[in-house]
């Protein structure tokens, strides 16, 4: 089973839920798909077993063959190539690596080069396998690196995908193909507002979902009212407790120090199986 953990609003506790659940069940592979700000490894203190650079293809122009016809620049939807009568300018950070310019060039003047966008780390902590990516600072495109992280999925394990915040392309790339998605929210107006957007995205993508309420007890009751109205199951509530917040701040998964939570996360995972029909 592949479970993704997303949220809409940032800082609601996605990584905390992902890591604590991963530690509470067996045979797990955790993939941290927040390649812009990966944090799961900070709670797991893993041993590194492999680091790989990740490249994307970008155009390589042979100026000798190029006659500056401008077809590539016209074709490129992302404005990654600019052709003037004298020169061809490339903007690799805008390129989506579709390869279109290499097909469209009538002079066969465009080949492909590789451009490094980040690194992939494969690590382990006890029996737990963790894969995560680190986007190079200044690189805008997270999606190709997320794709690379997800290429490491090992279906023989219980796969948990920790998503970046938001509701746009990096989130879609992460949750795509998952059997179930947990949306972690906090019971506040910001939490509810962003939860609603995230629910709409998952409904569009036809991915079954449920909610985990983190920091329960703060804010108001509107998240609960919304979930009831939409018939969305509330899978777990994690109360706001200073001890949980302090453990998190030190990089300690709270289920290790508060073993009753380990059982709750096991129950949560069993509920997911049932809800996803797996």
């Amino acid at each position, binding site marked *: 089973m592949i479970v993704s953990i997303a949220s809409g609003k940032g800082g609601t506790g996605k990584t905390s839920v992902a890591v604590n659940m991963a530690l509470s069940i067996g045979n797990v592979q955790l993939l941290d798909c927040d390649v812009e*700000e990966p944090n799961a490894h900070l709670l797991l203190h893993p041993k590194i077993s492999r680091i790989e650079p990740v490249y994307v293809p970008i155009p390589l122009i042979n100026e000798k063959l190029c006659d500056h016809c401008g077809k590539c620049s016209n074709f490129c*939807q*992302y404005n990654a190539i600019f052709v003037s009568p004298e020169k061809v300018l490339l903007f690799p950070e805008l390129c989506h690596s579709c390869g279109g310019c290499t*097909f469209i060039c009538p002079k066969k003047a465009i080949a492909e080069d590789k451009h490094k966008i980040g690194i992939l780390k494969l690590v382990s902590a006890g029996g737990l396998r963790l894969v995560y990516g680190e986007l190079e*600072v200044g690189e805008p495109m997270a999606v190709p690196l997320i794709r690379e992280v997800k290429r490491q999925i090992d279906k023989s394990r219980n796969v948990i995908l920790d998503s970046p915040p*938001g509701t*746009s392309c*990096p989130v879609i790339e992460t949750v795509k193909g998952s059997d179930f998605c947990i949306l972690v929210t906090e019971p506040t107006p910001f939490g509810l507002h962003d939860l609603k957007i995230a629910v709409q995205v998952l409904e569009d993508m036809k991915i079954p979902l449920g909610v985990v309420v983190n920091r329960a007890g703060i804010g108001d009751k509107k998240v609960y009212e919304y979930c009831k109205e939409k018939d969305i199951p509330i899978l777990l509530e994690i109360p706001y407790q200073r001890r949980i917040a302090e453990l998190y701040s030190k*990089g300690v998964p709270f289920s290790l120090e508060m073993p009753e939570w380990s059982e709750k996360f096991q129950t949560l995972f069993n509920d997911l199986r049932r809800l996803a029909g797996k």
Partner: protein
Amino acid sequence: MRQITVLSGKGGTGKTTLTAAFAVLAKKAVVADCDVDAPDLHMLLHPEIIQTQEFKGSKLAFVDEAKCVKCDLCREKCRFKAITENFKVDQFSCEGCGVCTITCPANAIALTERISGHAYISKTKFGFMSHAMLTPSEANSGKLVTLVRQNSKILAAKENINLIIIDCPPGIGCPVIASVTGVDAGLVVAEPTMSGIHDLKRALQLLAHFDVLPFVCVNMHDINMDNTEKIESFCKENNVEIVGRISFSPEVTEAMVNGKTIIKYSPGSVVAKEIEAVWEKISVLISENNLNERVAHEPKKR
């Protein structure tokens, strides 16, 4: 005109709470909510929309079934696996590149434009606001951020306002880069957790990469004093200006529940006073004189 972006790397550290407070304290500023896929600032500032703009950010391939000869060439050439076995376009995978349109021998595929969001220009009790909403599950938030920023500049020029305060989304990728390029200063709101420290460092690297003057404040600093000190000594070692500490307070959530900025909700509170002190410090640091001095002493790298 001066522009400052409130960012954090990590989500949920208090960017929007602080931006809304600054909008009140600055008295004369345009605020821009650049978190276009999960915007929250409007819930504290209650903008009245004056103008709405359609945003056409991305294109989508469309296969005309009547013309399709099912040759499979489009499926071979598409690097995003966006065309399904029965020759339908998967809208969640298609990046609108157009490769399928040029490989199709039957001319059965075209790119279609779609409305992927809306941009708004609004008025609030505290001034003007530029914001937007990306249609859920759409791509290209970076382009919409650029539009929000253009609108904020036009507004500022028209209304003769010389300060823009930008609320940034979390992360360090495309919409964040679009929110920080070309601004005068970036305030990184850090939280004293292991993740907070890690993400702060990457956010500071991003500001350095784009040659933006960095400031740091530690929010909810009393959650972990050791980490707060670690953050501050890291900043000192790296010559990054620390503009203050803000305490954890349940009043911040109460203010949010009441749809108010913390400044208006509990004006005399410790946390409101701390935020006022942070803003005062920033106002001096980003005054025309100080910024001009920076330009004179530290010539731009690029």
